[in-house]
């Protein structure tokens, strides 16, 4: 019976089926992992108070969010040096985010469940999201204005929220002035300095230029002074209020509202409250600047940088890819050479991306960029302008990297168009270019679109070459801003994929950064899935359409 069954080959078919199932499970597991951990980051966790009894130490109180639970079998726990009683099978440990890094020196702490005497989620627990030192967990005692208490007890919380709102709007004004206004002044001053140096280099620096220069500089200085005065007033306003809170150890600490982003009481929130909070957090994540060495806050500059790079890359890659495909399919004589070129182009898609990065760094940055600097920006030397990794070079490198994708896809589209259509057009007296422009290319446009989408998806997820040609962990300015010439192709930029690598692996506080990395990964995965699904759908539609045409 069994032997017969084996002979029929059926078990092997099942085994092959198992391979497919395994692949499917793996894909779904990876996506689910990223989804759950990425979304979980935004959901407000309960703040728990533990009474914790360590051996040989007095009973202590711990306040924080339970982030993770690990269950270690007894033998493993023993081998890592835990004392285990004979009747204990497992060692249960909680990872608690205790925050208060300024007080305790660490954000996270592993505690053993068996040493927890008591745990509860008191309503009074507050979480303070701060601009530095990470979160604070504790209890609110009072709100102060210029050191004098203005509210305590039940009034404290509403009063605090009002004042935080006020402080936040002041903070926004300060950032606006410091980044935008003063940033523009600094940018103007730098341009002025370069202009002066350029005139000196060209021996055109005369008394008139000097006068003009002095006037411009005085103008900028005056602007700067007025902003400084404004800033001083704002700083005085934002430093007025502070709050007093009690930590787990009972110590009272005073936190100026200038350093507070948000205060909330997760334990009192109901489901809808949590939903609101969740929405707010997601929005903050998408639109805010990063804080605390990228481990908190938002990832807006990374999203912006990725999008900018992808757009510039698309502008470069589409025309060139399409022209190359049209040449290969419509103009070149089909023969051994075109076949060879086709194979070569196809294989360039398989060349490791890091090789493109090396090429981009050597050729674009050092050779092209270096020469551009020597020709057009002698005044900036020794500081490089284009002779250093930047947005333009990153886009160009990725354009080169994705060129094969666009060529292959467009060619495929061109090949699918029935010959009869071309011949019909030519027979009606249209020239070749007219045939192409009016009939063939419009019909092939979905294929080009597919190619472009695939190229964009690949570019958005590619990191290795970017590390060499222009991505940085923290860019002080966006590549697009209000200062002439608005689009700064020479600037370095931030990128979602690199952000994941950098925050996840190069950050000093990996544990604290982890939720943010998962969230970033989720965003990137979503973008890529949407792009790829679009490409797949377009491709399938296209196939249907031509099947109809051919039939």
């Amino acid at each position: 019976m069994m032997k017969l069954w084996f002979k029929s080959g059926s078990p092997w078919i099942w085994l092959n089926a198992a391979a497919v199932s395994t692949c499917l499970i793996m894909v779904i597991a990876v996506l689910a992992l990223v989804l759950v951990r990425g979304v979980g980051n935004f959901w407000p966790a309960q703040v728990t108070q533990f009474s914790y009894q360590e051996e040989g130490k007095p009973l202590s109180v711990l306040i924080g969010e339970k982030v993770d639970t690990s269950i270690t079998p007894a033998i493993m726990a023993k081998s890592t040096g835990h004392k285990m009683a004979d009747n204990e099978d497992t060692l249960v440990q909680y990872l608690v985010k205790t925050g208060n890094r300024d007080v305790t020196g660490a954000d996270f702490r592993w505690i053993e469940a068996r040493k927890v005497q008591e745990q509860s989620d008191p309503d009074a627990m507050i979480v303070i999201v701060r601009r530095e030192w990470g979160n604070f967990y504790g209890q609110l005692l009072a709100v102060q204005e210029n050191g004098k208490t203005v509210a305590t007890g039940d009034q404290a919380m509403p009063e605090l929220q009002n004042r935080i709102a006020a402080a936040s709007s002041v903070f926004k004004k300060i950032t606006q002035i410091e980044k935008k206004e003063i940033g523009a002044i600094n940018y103007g001053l730098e341009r002025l300095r370069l202009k002066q140096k350029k005139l000196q280099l060209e021996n055109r620096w005369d008394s008139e230029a000097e006068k003009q220069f002095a006037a411009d500089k005085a103008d900028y200085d005056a602007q700067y002074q007025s902003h400084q005065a404004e800033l001083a007033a704002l700083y005085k306003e934002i430093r007025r209020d502070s709050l007093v809170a009690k930590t787990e150890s009972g110590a009272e600490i005073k936190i100026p509202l200038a350093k507070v982003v948000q205060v909330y009481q997760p334990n009192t929130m109901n489901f809808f409250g949590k939903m609101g909070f969740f929405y707010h957090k997601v929005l903050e994540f998408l639109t805010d600047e990063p804080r605390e060495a990228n481990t908190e806050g938002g990832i807006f500059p990374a999203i912006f940088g990725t999008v900018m790079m992808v757009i510039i890359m698309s502008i470069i890659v589409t025309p060139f890819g399409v022209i190359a495909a049209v040449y290969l399919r419509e103009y070149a004589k089909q023969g051994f050479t075109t076949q060879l070129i086709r194979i070569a182009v196809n294989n360039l898609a398989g060349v490791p991306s890091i090789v493109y990065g090396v090429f981009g760094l050597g050729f674009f940055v050092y050779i092209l960029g270096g020469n551009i600097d020597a020709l057009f920006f002698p005044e900036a030397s020794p500081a490089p302008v284009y002779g250093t990794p930047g947005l333009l070079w990153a886009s160009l490198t990725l354009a080169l990297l994705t060129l094969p994708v666009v060529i292959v896809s467009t060619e495929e589209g061109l090949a699918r168009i029935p010959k009869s259509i071309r011949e019909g057009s030519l027979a009606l007296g249209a020239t070749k270019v007219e045939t192409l422009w009016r009939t063939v290319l419009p019909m092939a446009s979905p294929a080009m679109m597919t190619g472009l989408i695939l190229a964009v998806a690949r570019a958005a997820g590619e990191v290795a070459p970017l590390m060499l040609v222009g991505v940085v962990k923290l860019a002080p300015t966006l590549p697009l801003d209000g200062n002439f010439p608005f689009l700064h192709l020479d600037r370095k930029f931030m990128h979602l994929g690199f952000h994941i690598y950098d925050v996840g692996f190069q950050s000093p506080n990996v544990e604290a950064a982890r939720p943010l990395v998962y969230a970033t990964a989720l965003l990137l995965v979503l973008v890529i899935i949407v792009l790829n699904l679009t490409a797949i759908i377009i491709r399938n539609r296209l196939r249907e359409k031509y099947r109809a045409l051919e039939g």
Partner: protein
Amino acid sequence: MSDTHPLNKPPSVMEKSANSYYQRWRLVKDSLARFGVIAGGLSVIVALVLIFFYLLYVVIPLFKPATAEAGNHYALPEAALGKTVLLDVEEQNEVAARFTDTGQVIFFEAATGKPVLTESIKIPAGTKVVSFAQGSPISEGAVIYGLSNGQAVVVKHQYQITYPNNKRLITPSLKYPLGEAPIVIDDKGTALEICAVKVGDKSTTIVAKTADKVRLLHIEKQQNLFTDEVTLERTVVDLNVAVATVTNMLIDKEERNLYLVSDDGHLSFFDISDKTLPVIRQNVNMVTAGEKITASTFLNGDSSLLIGDSTGLVSQWTMVRDELKRPAIQKIRAFKVSEKAIAAINPEPRRKGFAAIDADGMMGVYHTTSEREVLREQVTKALPIAAALSPRANALLVEASDKNIYFWKLDNKHPEVSVKSLWQEVWYEGYPKPDYIWQSSASNNDFEPKYSLTPLVFGTLKAAFYAMLVAIPLALMGAIYSAYFMTPIMRQYVKPTVELMGALPTVILGFLAGLWLAPTLEENLAGFFLMFMLLPVGVMVFAYAWHNLPARILEKIPEGWEAAILIPVILLTGWFAFAISVPLETALLGETLRDWFKNEWGIGYDQRNSLVVGMAMGFAVIPTIFSIAEDAIFSVPKHLTVGSLALGATTWQTMTRVVLLTASPGIFSAVMIGLGRAVGETMIVLMATGNTPVMDLSVFQGLRTLAANIAVEMPESQVDSTHYRVLFLAALVLFLFTFVFNTLAEIIRQRLREKYSSL
């Protein structure tokens, strides 16, 4: 496009001229477009090809031989002021210095010999210079004069660069780091026959040999914390050694080791880290009996000695720790310069190279790490007296017995690289045996760069191997099933899902591998192993049970859904494997599998190891292999399979005997392309391994691949340096490797397509 409308109407006579103009314009447009497209298309293709040639262009200088070009030769400047004991050139190759045996220093223009400045060393009246030596390291410019009255003078020569009127001006000068008064070494006043010195900021060590002893003098500057007063503390000790034959003495720059060289080939090696108690560590014979040591000096970094002998051989001796961790001098390689005795050895001040000149004026330039003779040139016809290699190793001055100085320009940019130093075992300084090591940079010039690509290639192949081990079975079996057995409805969803898997950014896979999979695997090693073993068993058991289900139920379930049915089975088996792993470990091993490997087999465990890389990169490679192999299997012509089935073969027989055989070239090419992808993958290995370039076969150890190495080191490497070019070489190797594999695979696929269409 309003210009279309004349076409739509038949041309009338009136319109004819305008029309012909328009027709001509259309033709011009057509040919312009043709020209544009051809130019554009070709330039895109050229741009893609450019990648290869650009990489080659950067790499080629690595393998270009060095050249020497004869410059001026001129009469010895101020020949009357005595015989040369040392020649030296400063960094810019503009000013050279000649130290004479009468205590004069003549600075002159290196290119023309025109004297710039002549200085006299302050020597007490009635004494004369008996011995002379360069301090260590030579780049600091200290020299010592041993006098006939038992005293010594230490001088530093330095060059100050200023830019008056935007022109470079180099001003040489002399400085006395220990004060102008001579230092008394032998209070009895016997002449210092040989001396050696190391001048430091805080302390100075001098060794001098008189007729009857070798004396070590250590001077330590001590600054009083409160008064800023500087006092000098002197320690004097005589070495316990036979002095008669000593001809050269060398102190390393750490002031730890002292080497006494005798011309009969004997070397005594003293440990002088304790200045009051020098200990002799070793006595070695460095040349074969009857031969003589004719030149000896340190290699840059002072951890190797270069010994030139009367047979024209220069050998490199380095400090190696033996089994008992005792330091010992050992010969690690030798260079044959000629048959004549070595006259001078000049080490390069910044690299591990040196120039050796024999008694006939034949010069060889060598690099120790790469064991390369970079250059050989007859620099003078007369007997060479002294030679100087410039700090950047791009110029050489040779004084010959014909009272002339010969100026040579050297072009020797990348001596560190040879086929041997890149691919074979190299015996590096201070290592107990030859080894493959990649260690490209350190903070100072003394470091010996180790550019062995072997560990990187090894790491690349190791990572690719484990990835393929995971990917090939899953991808190929999956492809077989979904192309041939799966119901079309399910296939419609499975294919895009797998394509999506391939589109996932590798940075995300790498991040999950490094931050989630690696710690999970570390904790559940036994569970994972058990899962690998139990999964096929579980599937088989389930399949057998399914087979034995009543036919009544089986009939109702359509065929080709096995993969969907198996999902819960696999999940359940996986869960079961993890659940029983710990009790099993406790029962069988009494410790965790990880500890068991370590204790029983001595296999250490790295958290980010090859297994993690294999699983993560396998995940990334599966879609590539899957979709190509699936295409190949799916497009096997139907009449073949139908024919086989009609002849009575089972589906499985048809699969293995007909379909797989026909599709095998396609499957092969799928594997090739997958391998190409695994070899070049960067982010996953960067994040999922510790990036340690070790050569270790163990699954539980990390690795570093070529691609990850480029990503890690490229941003910091200096443009056009050897390191930069070696990284480009790594990129070129990757490029060629993947390109060749992909092209092979592509050609096989093309052939297959033709074959199918003819079938």
